[in-house]
């Protein structure tokens, strides 16, 4: 069996801060099979960005990986020297960021930028230009030859994001990380961008790790999903089971909060009362215990493990353990 496109195992990451060590990621494990689209959903502060930075090894200087393993198609990324890691980025693994305007250089034409990033390729300028045109055509940018000479500000937001996608996929990477790529777009463009990602993923055959806090987009695009809360993956499973039958109380609350899921029009919207736990002084028990409606005795004593459930699912909750081992 082929090695997974991405494998993260028991990753612990902490930041040195004035207040002490901030445990941003704790025991994070996830897997993206080749050609699979896997979602990460979670709210601000859940560790999505820390995880992406760790995978890319583009962490702030005060961050340290304290435990765990990250492997890209079998290659252990944490063992690579910086130069080897640099060769990997943009070639085997690439990223589409949230804001397409800041991801593109405003003073260079998009043609220039798209040719520059092919610096690893052999071949002349004409060949690189042709490849840029070809990629723009694949992301359905009209009239790509002419538009190659234009600058980022001359494109609409939706077009800029498609250009960013074209650039990320130019080297046909094994893994594409999409970090909230549709957040800055409107409903019609959001949908078009998701459809485009799906099509390109099929054509190129790359795996996608899709990070978003938008539940609708995740449901629309992903095969499997990991739900993160306060630095932990609290639930994982195939998209249908997690959305139809969420097992972790946080997933349940999160899904219930989405106004799109409420059939009846209501002025009063559901919320999750309480705040995120302090990640410097972690609670002794489960990180969600203070906000959890189903909290019971064991939750306060020690953090729960990631308990496997039927159907290749898992949840970090004592209620899930009860069910597996009666």
């Amino acid at each position: 069996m082929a090695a997974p496109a991405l494998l993260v195992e028991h990753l612990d990451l902490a930041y040195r801060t004035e207040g002490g060590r901030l445990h941003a990621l704790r025991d994070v494990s996830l897997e993206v099979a080749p050609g699979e689209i896997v979602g990460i959903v979670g709210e601000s502060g859940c560790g999505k960005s820390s995880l992406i930075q760790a995978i890319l090894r583009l962490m702030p200087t005060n961050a340290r990986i304290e435990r765990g393993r990250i492997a890209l198609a079998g290659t252990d990324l944490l063992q690579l020297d910086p130069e080897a890691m640099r060769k990997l980025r943009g070639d085997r693994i690439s990223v589409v960021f949230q804001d397409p305007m800041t991801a593109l250089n405003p003073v260079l034409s998009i043609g220039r930028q798209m040719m520059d990033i092919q610096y690893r390729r052999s071949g002349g300028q004409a060949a690189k230009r042709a490849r840029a045109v070809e990629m723009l055509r694949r992301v359905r940018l009209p009239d790509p030859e002419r538009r190659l000479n234009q600058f980022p500000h001359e494109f609409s937001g939706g077009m800029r994001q498609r250009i960013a996608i074209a650039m990320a996929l130019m080297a046909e990477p094994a893994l594409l990380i999409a970090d909230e790529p549709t957040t800055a777009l409107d409903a019609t463009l959001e949908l078009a961008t998701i459809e485009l990602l799906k099509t390109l993923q099929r054509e190129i055959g790359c795996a996608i790790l899709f990070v978003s806090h938008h539940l609708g987009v995740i449901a629309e695009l992903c095969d499997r999903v990991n739900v993160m809360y306060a630095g932990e993956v609290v639930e994982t499973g195939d998209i249908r089971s997690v959305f139809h039958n969420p097992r972790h109380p946080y997933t349940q609350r999160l899904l219930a909060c989405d106004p799109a899921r409420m059939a009846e029009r209501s002025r009063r919207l559901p919320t999750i009362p309480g705040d995120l736990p302090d990640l410097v002084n972690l609670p002794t028990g489960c990180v969600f215990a203070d906000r959890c409606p189903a909290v019971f005795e064991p939750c306060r004593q020690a953090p729960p493990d990631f308990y496997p459930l039927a159907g290749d699912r898992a949840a970090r909750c004592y209620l899930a353990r009860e069910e597996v081992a009666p």
Partner: protein
Amino acid sequence: MSALVEVRDLVVRFGGKRSLSSLVTGRSDSITAVAGASFAMAEGETFALVGESGSGKTTLARALIGLTPAASGSVSFQGQSTLGLAGAALKRLHRDIAMIFQDPVGSLSPRFTVRGLLAEPFRIHGLADRDLDAEVDRLLGLVGLPRAMADRLPHQLSGGQARRVGVARAIALSPKLVIADEPTAGLDVSVQGEVLNLLNDLRETLGLSMLIITHNLNVVRHVADRMAIMYLGRFVEVGTTEAIFAGPRHPYGLALLSANPEPDPDARPNRMALEGEVPSLLDRPLGCEFHGRCPFVRERCRSEAPAVTSDPDGRLFTCHYPLTPGVISIGGTPHVAEERPDLR
């Protein structure tokens, strides 16, 4: 009942200085960001402006409170014309109409504490002789923030807390109308609910009217009484939220509603995909400006701009061949274009 706000044929233009290129090409350099918008808001009403980025939502709101000059048209607030107000008169208007700006943290001065931020409206409006500490406490209480929050700086606040401070600033001087520009953008779903519930509570307790600008349709459905859908600076459809969600009459309205991603992996609604790109405001299409992307386009749409039409229940739309709810199904809601026997 008289309208609180009445906007008629409002036009806002940007640019248009005579540049060399415009002399050579004979083409105007100005863009019309808002191209003749008309609507009225009753007291206590929540009205939503919906549309893609660049459709003119924020510009319309800014023109309404005099932050951006209007090229033509009229705006009246409580029966008084507000266009062209300046100096003391404009300042006076800003006591009655307050705005909550888009970026929750970015719209707060980073060097002010929350106390300073909440006292600022009183200072600006010459009300510093009030007991400002008491006012700050009152405002924090209204938006559900603990008093200890007063000494924090904006960067020490979470997105939801910063948004609450923005709301507190907006309601400081007891306005009649609050304009909320993307009040939930960038907030998580659980916090989004808190902010919307807060706005709704304040609307009820303080008797506010609200103009909400958003592209989040799920929010609109739950909070707005009426809504307007904007496309390229024009209203293509205006009506009650319930009626529009039950069956939009403009094809763009239908596309927008059917494109709303559903948080259900099995919901694969029959979507209406739009072809083509959003046209440039510098080069507006002839005829109906939506014709290049409209799946129901017909010959007339390419040459003749549709007029604003009203249906019996007061819904306004701008389309030659409006959709009739109830015949074919797109996005879970059945629709058909009138005079399209091939689709029936």
